């Protein structure tokens, strides 16, 4: 039986992992799971621990001793942990990977390429390479790489490429479409495709997630509200967006670049941009290399050229 299916024991934890409910993922005890699932659970837990910016080295060590013969995996996780804790990768583990040999390696290396090498195109090539070479059976089980790939395309604004991947899921077995990853992926594409019905459907996906218990997980809730904030603005439901804004601020999380960027757009829409300058300063502090800042910088310089080009020497 597939441990990930509805009735499988990994179903819940996987859903939680991919919907940013990292605290819940962490809170499980390995003994709650059957021995064959424990490694996967541990993998999620380590990744969740890293995601909430805690040190996972202890967990990794425990794992090494508990699951001998998986050195590869733990080496990867440990490199990932180091990367997140120290910001750089001393071991040059990721640099040495030219082609990925298994799913998680492909996923994490891709993220590394984007985050540290800032090279999205290379990341896309790397990941596509992995997907193309993966055998069909694995392809249907391993869909996290697709998720990453879709996001990479969408970062670049290439909706058609992303949509093509999404559509290729039609050829996958039905079970693949029950996968939470598929649903997440679908929610993105629906939102970006636009049109009220699509955005609404995407909105409901996240809205439903919100109904799960987030009391002790402000970080997870923050991420979720952030997405809802975007979708609400997209739907032009400004009062609701304002309400979300209040809720998000009340969570008192550390500043997030994307949130501030969206707040800027929202301020333009409801406030004629009165607070934009202030928010831009905040954004610079929170994430100095946020795409919005780069974009605005570029636009300003284009505008400078325009000013120069048309001005009359009066």
């Amino acid at each position, binding site marked *: 039986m597939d441990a990930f299916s509805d009735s499988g024991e990994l179903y819940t934890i996987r859903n939680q992992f991919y919907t940013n409910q990292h605290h819940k993922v962490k809170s499980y005890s390995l003994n709650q799971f059957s021995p064959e699932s424990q490694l996967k659970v541990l993998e999620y837990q380590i990744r969740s621990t890293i995601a909430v910016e805690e040190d996972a080295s202890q967990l990794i060590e425990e794992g090494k001793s508990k699951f001998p013969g998986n050195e590869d995996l733990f080496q990867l996780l440990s490199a990932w942990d180091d990367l997140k804790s120290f910001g750089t990768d001393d071991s040059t583990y990721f640099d040495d990977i030219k082609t990925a040999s298994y799913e998680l390696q492909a996923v994490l290396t891709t993220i590394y390429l984007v985050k540290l090498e800032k090279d999205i195109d290379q990341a896309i090539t790397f990941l596509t390479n992995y997907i193309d070479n993966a055998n069909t059976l694995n392809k249907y089980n391993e869909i996290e790489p697709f998720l990453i790939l879709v996001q990479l395309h*969408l970062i670049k604004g290439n909706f058609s490429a992303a949509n093509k991947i999404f559509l290729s899921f039609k050829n996958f077995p039905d079970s693949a479409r029950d996968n939470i990853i598929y649903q997440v992926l679908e929610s993105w594409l629906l939102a970006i495709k*636009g049109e009220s019905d699509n955005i609404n459907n995407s909105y409901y996906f996240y809205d439903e997630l919100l109904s799960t218990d987030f009391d002790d997980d402000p970080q997870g809730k923050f991420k979720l509200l952030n997405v809802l904030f975007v979708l609400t603005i997209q739907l032009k439901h400004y009062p609701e967006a304002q309400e979300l804004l209040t809720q998000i601020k009340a969570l008192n999380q550390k500043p997030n670049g994307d949130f501030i960027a969206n707040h800027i757009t929202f301020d333009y*829409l409801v406030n004629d941009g009165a607070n934009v300058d202030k928010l831009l300063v905040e954004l610079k502090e929170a994430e100095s290399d946020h795409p919005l800042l780069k*974009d605005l910088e570029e636009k300003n310089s284009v505008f400078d050229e325009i000013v120069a080009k048309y001005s009359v020497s009066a």
Partner: protein
Amino acid sequence: MKMLTKFESKSSRAKGVAFHPKRPWVLVSLHSSTIQLWDYRMGTLIDRFEDHVGPVRCVDFHPTQPLFVSGGDDYSIKVWSLNTRKCIFTLNGHLDYIRTVSFHKDLPWIISCSDDQTIRIWNWQNRQEIACLTGHNHYVMSAQFHPTEDLIVSASLDQTVRVWDISGLRKKHSAPTSSMRSFEDQLQRQQLPQQDIFGNVNAIVKYVLEGHDKGVNYAAFHPTLPLIVSAGDDRVVKLWRMSDTKAWEVDTCRGHTGNVLCAVFHPHQDLILSVSDDKTIRVWDLNKRVPIKQFRRESDRFWLIASHPTINLFASCHDSGVMVFKLERERPAHAIFQNKLFYVNAEKQVQSYDFQRNEASLPMLSLKKIGKTWSFMRTLSYNQSDNSILVTHGEGDSGNYALITLPKHVTGAIEPTDIRQGEGNFACFISRNRFVAFIKSSKTLHVKDLSNNITKTIQLDSSVTDVLYGGPGRVLLVKSHSVVNYDVQQRKELAEISVNNVKYVSWSNDGQNLALLSKHTITIATKDLELVTSMHETIRIKSAAWDDSGVLLYSTLNHIKYTLLNGDNGIIKTLENTLYITRIAQKQVYCLNRSGEVEVVNIDPTEYRFKKSLVNKNFAEVLRIIKNSNLVGQNIIAYLQKKGYPEVALQFVQDPETRFELALECSNINVALEQAKILNNNTIWEKLGEEALNQGNLEVVEFVYQKLHLFDKLAFLYTYKGDSERLHKMATVAEHRGDVSALVQNTLYNNDVKKRCQVYIQSGMLPLAYVLAKSNGFTELAQQILQEAGVEEKDVELPEIGSTVALPQPVTEPLGNWPLKESSLSFFESALLTGQVENLSLEQSEEATDKFVDASAAVVDFNDEDDALEDEGDAWDLDDDLDIPEDDEIIPADEDFPVVAAADGEIGYWLKNAKTAGGYAAAGSFEQAASLLSKQLGVVNFEPLRSRFLEVYSSSKLYLPGIDDLPAMKDYIRADNDEDNPNKFKPYIPGFDSLEDQLALGFKYFNANNLEDAISTFRSIIYTITLITVEDEDQESKCKDVLVLCREYVLGLSIELARRALDPNDIKRNLELAAYFTRAQLQNPHKLNALQVAMTQSFKHKNFASASHFADEILKISPSGQRAERAQKVKARADQVASDAIEIDFDPYAEFDICAATYTPIYRGSPSVSEELVGAKYKPEFKGSVCKITQITAVGAQASGLRIIG
């Protein structure tokens, strides 16, 4: 009411007639024993049925099966098959002439009545008589089933009409037959035909209607109401009503002067139609029982009238045939204005239909009281300037028009209040304040104003039979053989075209062409009436409309068709019911049906677009259609072949045979070869070989010859190719095949003497072999031959032998294919190969850009003053003439639009769909936005627009967070989330909704005397509008109003600021500026501030005359209150002196603009330049400088004007 004849047949006396329920067929039974089947649309006789002996009095089609039934004076009823066109069987039983016969609507029954005084019911499935109804004691002249109930109505010469209840019969025949009936039973049933074994009565007489004084010839049920109409020899038509328990006479229609032979109800209108041997058909109002219309034939008595079950058609039999006619036209009167269709519905109410929203309005006006009850609205013309309609109704001398204002708010069909009526057979608006009415009897054309006063009368030529709309200020005069374009203002015939009996006209959307519709002909002409093309249709043409690309779609009785300007035409759709096309929008054809409802028909315009593109040589479009549509069919292929585009046709064809032929036609040997391989048939190979030879393609020729085993030809081919190697092979082949003659031929080709000798020897032709050997110097061989032949050398006498002939050697390599000039691939071939359509440059057809202006919206007022003597009271409202220039089409708009590099996804759509600078800015294409603004407005200083650019850009961008650690995904805010057509995706651009708030903010600063902030707020509003996208003209005009408002405030406040900054000693300038400030078009409360300043300053500086003037102005705006009191006081004091101490440059009574740079007046007539965005005025010396109001635009720059509708 009008009776319109659609078909007439000529024959001997017709006694019975019936309509086919679906097809355009009528059956006619003749007194001469023949039954005819006519197609009344085409007017052709389809078949004749002759099996009866003697007159056939009645026929009827089966409602669903391909059957019909007839009854005649030979006492027999015959049932016929429409498939085999033969009589299937005959029902015998009646003992005298059969008068009527008809099918039951759903049971397998036939009813018949006869002079034998009985009515019989037959089952046509088992071919048995199932009931015989007796009771009438004279000939039964008619009998028919009730359309829904188990009733029969019959009429007899016994002067009664009887209603029979046959529910018992139905019960009996739907009951299961339990067992075999005994012989006795059956016998009993035979003897008592009205009773079955249970004593059930088949049919009982329910009512006997007595009232006719003579024999009754016909009786019929109403299709829905419990009514019966009957016709009798007492020359009257009677109307009866029945309830469940009784029936009674309602009224009598008198008027016929002979025996009334038949009367029927109209299937869906409250009318009765009757025919009589007084040679008339009469139409009666069912409710008032009064005659409405009568139609007379000179010498034919009418015998019967039948109605079509669904369509408004009737057929009547008379002494010399049958006529098919309809009552009244069915073309709903309608007019189109911009995106609205105004039309008269079946209830005689005016409705409108919005083409953009695809919805019909509620009825807005009832026309029931216009004209007579049954008069029909023939035409409708709409005038937008006062929202009124002009309808015409009635025929001939009673033709009238009515001019009615439509209600402002549609609340349901209200009765019109203000009706202006007059005589006229045709009327339409020709300008926004004039309409024409044509009176046919006197051939006069009146031009009238909207108050219904005649402003001009034109006596037209006596040959004019009708008038049609001819564009603004013009009409088309219709004569029987021509149409004249007539300028009503100049009373001048502009052009004439020869065309017969035109009935309607349809103008193309750009006003460049018109289609003149006659009954069977469409003539397309230019607006100057030069013939473009003309075509004939065998079926009646009903309507026509132009699509935006200049293709004419027209409807006939049963088709929607198209025609191109070159006359190419085809069928688009077959129609169940006749429709009148009003407008075509892409794939949708908006039609009116005969029930006065809008029907939207979806069509596939591919075929005509394809043909049109081909005709216009718009190959890129042709290719696009080929690639994107499944356009196939013999029709298109034949068309392409005919038009000389076999290579295009080649793209469609799959069938190898056709492909082969097409390939040969376009000399494409390669494709032909491929197809030949598939077909592999000798004839095909031969054709290919021939063509290849013509082209010098020797390879293919060789291949073909090999394929066809044409060795001789092949050998010869190798010879002239100089291919000795293959030639040798051919010799070997010939030898193998034992084809001696071919072998000899080959040795001749390659001069192989030895071989030839051997062949001769083998064939026993020794002398020949010897001579050959000898003459070629093969002495040895010659000897051998001699030996073999047993002769001595001396026995043979040979002539003188010359030297041997050497075989010429080919100069070089064997010949290859004949070199052909490198032909460039045709447009299509290369395009289909490369898939690159866009790069191919071919001239596109020019689209007419100038839009057609509807008369009612015409900008130019039409002047019909006959002479200068007419009094001025009749002059046109000249003021209206000022608001003319909506002519935005003059600007070649597209030149403004920059070419934008392609982008992907949402941004790509936005760029593609961008029409405004705002649209480009939002899509991030600042350069394009700037370039547009520069062209449209002459913007030279962009810096102040920076924040607006960034606002517009940022307001539609969102960052959708995805996986942690990865950057967010790009997400977008669209202008309309309900839009699902990517070609209409546009970015959301903020600004329009907050204009009011911004203005309020500006006013707030104004009131707080915070003039700098007020100015910068108004300026920021100007910037907002500079980079905005709005949805429609309303919003656009609001923006333009706001721009003017902002200009006035910025100007006024700048003047006031300048005044405050003055040196206090400069009193003259102070007073001037205060005065100019009052001239800014501020809102009244604000204007009071300005006036107050001016008044106070003037008074203070003893300019009493001016002070008094400003006080007056204050009192005009605010006649009471504190401010007014003060003004009155000032005025009273000032008027005592009434002169100015300081002369200033301000004439309170002159109109002037204020130069926005110098703050000095520019009086009317003085030279000035203006700025494009807000229209600020400057003295000429400021041309080229940056506008002080907007601070972004150049004064007097060449500019095409702001465009913000996206």
